[in-house]
């Protein structure tokens, strides 16, 4: 039994370890170890395409995680006080957002937005004062952020709702019995209690957005995110540079995840 577990753990971690090991390879070939070196990290970090893609990924992940945490928290709080058909509709939309395959979400966003833009752009052009260049909608940062916010928001709503459900109702009741306004109750009671969950939701959303390939593949338009860049360079062949990028991406996600876990744990401890 123990032996079996060890074999499974090896299965889970050897591939990751091999990538990390070969990223420090001094040799030019991807699959022959020739001494230790960090030169592939330097090359990767010096590559303008990699840095551009990384910048795009970070900006998109930060903005969409922020939107998802703020709007998701607002929705979760309001859903607490809502019953009836509106709540059913909302629950269904969250369910659909999580259940529909990512690839279908990507496709739907692509053709939905392109169709919308094709209607909007001529309209704007007609309405815009003559002589001035009217703004033109196209796929890029905006569509990436909007699409990532959608599926990460569904996750945030679920996390915050679980946290709110575990919260002692007597606390908010006591607060309003003591004549605190709803806003004061929210700021002084609810928010401190759910804050770790919001932060955890933010970090998870950031990781999801940062690691997402399939949605970005469809809706990124002229932009390139890091996973899209890595995918296309893998198509061109396996290089030590990709190993270095991969190792850095894995290390970054691990850091985010550990922080999210620590925050969630701490939040639970506080409530007990």
């Amino acid at each position, binding site marked *: *039994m123990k032996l079996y577990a060890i074999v*499974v753990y090896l299965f889970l971690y050897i591939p*990751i370890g091999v*990538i990390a090991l070969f990223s420090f390879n001094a040799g030019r070939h991807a699959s022959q170890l020739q001494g230790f070196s960090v030169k592939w990290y330097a090359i990767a970090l010096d590559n303008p395409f990699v840095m551009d893609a990384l910048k795009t990924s970070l900006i998109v992940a930060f903005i969409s995680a922020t939107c998802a945490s703020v709007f998701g928290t607002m929705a979760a709080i309001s859903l607490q006080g809502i019953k009836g058909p509106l709540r059913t509709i909302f629950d269904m939309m969250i369910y659909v957002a999580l259940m529909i395959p990512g690839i*279908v979400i990507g496709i*739907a966003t692509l*053709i939905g937005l392109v169709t919308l833009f094709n209607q909007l752009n001529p309209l704007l052009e007609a309405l815009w004062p003559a002589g001035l260049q009217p703004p033109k909608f196209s796929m890029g940062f905006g569509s990436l952020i909007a699409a990532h916010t959608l599926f990460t*928001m569904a996750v945030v709503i679920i996390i915050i709702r679980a946290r709110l459900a575990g919260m002692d109702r007597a606390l908010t009741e006591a607060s309003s019995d003591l004549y605190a306004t709803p806003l004061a109750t929210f700021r002084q009671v609810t928010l401190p209690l759910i804050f770790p969950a919001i932060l955890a939701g933010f970090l998870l959303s950031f990781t999801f957005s940062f690691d997402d390939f399939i949605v970005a593949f469809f809706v990124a338009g002229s932009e390139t995110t890091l996973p899209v860049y890595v995918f296309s360079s893998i198509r061109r062949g396996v290089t030590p540079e990709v190993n270095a990028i991969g190792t850095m991406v894995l290390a970054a996600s691990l850091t985010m995840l550990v922080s999210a876990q620590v925050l969630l744990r701490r939040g639970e401890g506080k409530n007990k």
Partner: protein
Amino acid sequence: MKQRTRNWLLLAPAGTWFLVMLIVPLTVVLIFSFGERGASGGYVPALTLEQYANLPARWTAFKNTMVLAPAGTMAALLIAYPLAYFLAVRASPRWKTILLVLVIVPFWTSILIRSYAWIFLLGGRGIPALLGWAGLEDIRLINTPFAVLIGIIYGYLPLMVFPIFVSLDRLDKRLLEASSDLGARPWHTFVHVTLPLSIPGIATGCMLVFILLMGEFLIPAMLGGGKVFFVGNALVDLFLQSRNWAYGSAVAVTLVVVMLVTVTAYMRLIKRLGAQREDVAIM
């Protein structure tokens, strides 16, 4: 009344987002699936079932998905169950949490990089080179259904272990003691006590993995090398290469419908199994 207004205001941004970015686009896909392809790609409005009639052209993609998704789910279950059992029943409480975290962590890291690791391992200079060294020459691993299956198991094992672990961990260990005190052999205890009580975990794990596999693109794209492709790969081809939006939409709608039908049927089956178990328990 005032509180109601506040609730509405709080819900408005998320509601708008879901409407504009989810409901409207999905409706557009549904409408497009009844349309026609434009001369230079894209979409021309029409009301025809032509795209759906054309579905058999992509039969291989559907067949591969409907074979490899359940096969991958089963393989992941068979590998995950003993590990979940070990973690929940056998592992010492001190190590339990850390071992569980170690299983789950890879799932939250980039699946792209993790699949890439297998290109590396299964490719010409990886495991085949080791096998060649051991005397087994000319073994091709990459770009085979086997490689895709390995990728699937590797990618989704954590998602299968977790729910099974939860259901086994909740199980009252005194039941196992009672069973063995009453003279049942370990195997009997497992088949008649442990396994039935972990069915909810098995059901959840299988459903999660199966749903994700139905829409899989990356693993077959990277480890199947164009030879083993899923519906997801057909969709990428239709939308990003040949720009046949109407036909692509019909394929996407069909994928979602097949998925919903399979999952509903599966949930009914599990419910019935559960109901039978209860009957037995009452008797």
